[in-house]
């Protein structure tokens, strides 16, 4: 595969990019910090990524960086066939309720601008007959829940967009894959109390890579979260109001 990857320096993105590198995929990294991108690029090269791993600066909060970064990726990879987005912002419900600027950044990054980025990638992929667009949403978007009202709203919108995209463009060769991670122990969730069914980034990355290879439109990771969320989606409102979860 020829993969352009937004978010490969940290967490689940790092684990997924490493799996791709180990099997010899070509990679081009996008992210905010050139120093971090450079370090991850060298890591992925040692692990086995094919050729040089290039990178370009791209910031989910700055929409104007998207087109140029994807242009660089296309040039370096001679046309990418897969785009992966694991980047996103997270903050707790308390923080988001108390800080309008933070709220704006999280909603814009996780919903509005992720969609703008996907649109840019989608157009490039469709222009050459399709490919794969794999985007990390979250189980937080599956049901309105007290601890993730705002973050979950952004991810719910993103999930619906990805679902629609797959319905509309699969026939034209664009496979859209919505990843819905449950609680995964990464730097992003460090410091949060760890709930039951928490996962580690490496097994999650394996699950996601299998889904990419199989072209599955929706993947829960760890897999148990499919059943956890099925149960939560079926809970009556009265119960959702009563519980903390």
């Amino acid at each position, binding site marked *: 595969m020829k993969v352009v990857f937004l978010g490969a320096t940290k*967490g689940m993105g790092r684990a997924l990019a490493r799996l791709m590198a180990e099997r010899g995929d070509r990679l081009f990294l996008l992210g905010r910090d050139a120093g971090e991108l450079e*370090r991850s690029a060298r890591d992925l090269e040692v*692990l086995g990524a094919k050729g040089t791993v290039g990178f370009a600066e791209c910031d989910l909060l700055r929409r104007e960086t998207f087109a140029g970064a994807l242009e660089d990726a296309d040039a370096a990879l001679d046309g990418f066939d897969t785009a992966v987005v694991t980047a996103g912002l997270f903050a707790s419900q308390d923080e988001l309720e108390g800080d309008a600027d933070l709220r704006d950044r999280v909603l814009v990054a996780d919903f509005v601008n992720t969609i703008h980025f996907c649109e840019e990638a989608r157009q490039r992929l469709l222009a050459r007959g399709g490919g794969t667009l794999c985007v990390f949403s979250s189980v937080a978007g599956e049901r309105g829940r007290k601890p*993730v009202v705002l973050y979950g709203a952004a991810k719910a919108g993103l999930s619906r967009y990805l679902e629609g995209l797959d319905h509309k463009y699969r026939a034209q060769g664009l496979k859209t894959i919505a990843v819905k991670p449950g609680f995964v122990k990464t*730097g992003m969730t*460090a*410091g*949060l*109390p760890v709930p039951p069914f928490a996962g580690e980034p490496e097994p999650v990355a394996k699950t996601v890579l299998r889904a990419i290879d199989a072209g599955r439109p929706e993947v829960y990771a760890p897999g148990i979260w499919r059943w956890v969320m099925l149960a939560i989606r079926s809970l009556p409102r009265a119960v959702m109001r009563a519980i903390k979860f």
Partner: protein
Amino acid sequence: MPQTVLEQPATQSAAGSAHLTKVHGWGCYPSVEAYELLSEDLERITEGAMLTRGLGRSYGDASLPPPGGHVVAGSRLADRILSFDSATGVLRAEAGLSLVELNRLFRPKGWFTPVSPGTQYVTLGGMVAADVHGKNHHASGTFGRHVSRLRMRVADGRILEVSGEDEPELFRATLGGMGLTGHILEVELEMKAVPSQWIYGESEPVPNLDVLVEKLVEAGKSWPYTVGWADCLGRGATMGRGSVIKGRWAEASEAPARAPATKGKVDVPVLLPDWFLNRLNIRAFNELKYRAQWGVRKGFLHPQSFFYPLDAILNWNRFYGARGFTQYQCVLPPSGGASYRKLFEILLKNGGTPFLVVVKDFGAEGRGMLSFPRPGLTFAIDMPIVAGETQALVDTLNEFVAGEGGRVYLAKDAFTRPEHYRAMDPRVDAWNEVRRSWDPDARLRSSQSVRLFGDEP
């Protein structure tokens, strides 16, 4: 991202947020309350942290900040490989890279860690901080012998390149310095080229301690990897019976053609009750283990089985239950054998039936100012913690070891008294002088440094 309601006080700083949790080492004793920061960005979270810890595999209190809710940086998410030269084997990586990952990635390419401790669930930073040794100490020295450069954050906040040429004193104080001379951010080391992915090993039973020591030292003359283990059932003429195990990397021409398969692992999901490991079943296990081997055994072994037999059981420390356990590991200078026998006698008299004793002969002392290995024989014994008894047993053993000119391994220790440590290891003053020249106020400290080196809690 589901998130339960936060019940504990949080620390919030530029470096990140964390919640007050119980932190402990592999022996589950002691534990302290601390804020453990975890991030891929080790540079950021070490700013202002009192200590850095890796995978928490040291047994006692070496990886714990002093009690009282201090901040400790966790390195294990900082795990990128920054460069590898396939001509020389020189590798540079972030300090949180685990040995399990390093081996998994490099063994198929014909490279292996130059020195390996008995578990691969350790980080590069931890291997430097404890200056770990393995079955090849008699031939290859400690891990620190193969480390060429470090990137460190020192106590005043600066980030430095440290090596035998740049800041050589700090470099030597950091190898084996238990993370107290600065936060280790990156490690550069020389990997070892190996001819195949298999180990050729031999083991033979030995009837007592004298023969064990003799065969072990003899084996070291021709084998790169050697170790002995003794059970604690033998008494008198059979005291210290066990086996001597020898190994080397198989040549490509003789090794099995297939690559060693990935080994399955069994997990111990919960703490087992305290009575689970008791004197009866430990005796039974040792008796069976001794009887199961007759004659010399030879063959090709999975490197994982040879180097890390216990890694096949994840979380095996939970066998010991909530009481926790400790490991007593000391080194005794070479002797005619009398001091080794005496150590066993003290153990058998005061320690009941330890599981088994691992025995290894050490080569020359390395560069690390406070590194544990020195010429002689090292003995390592796991023991469950028994209130009132364990401290007394460690005291007795330490008094004996100090009298023999030996010392104990800080990476295992939770019970040694400061006066005993000082008596066993007079090098501590010179080391502390270097440490204090970089950190006059001892901003970097651990539960262990408070206990042993007189740091303020």
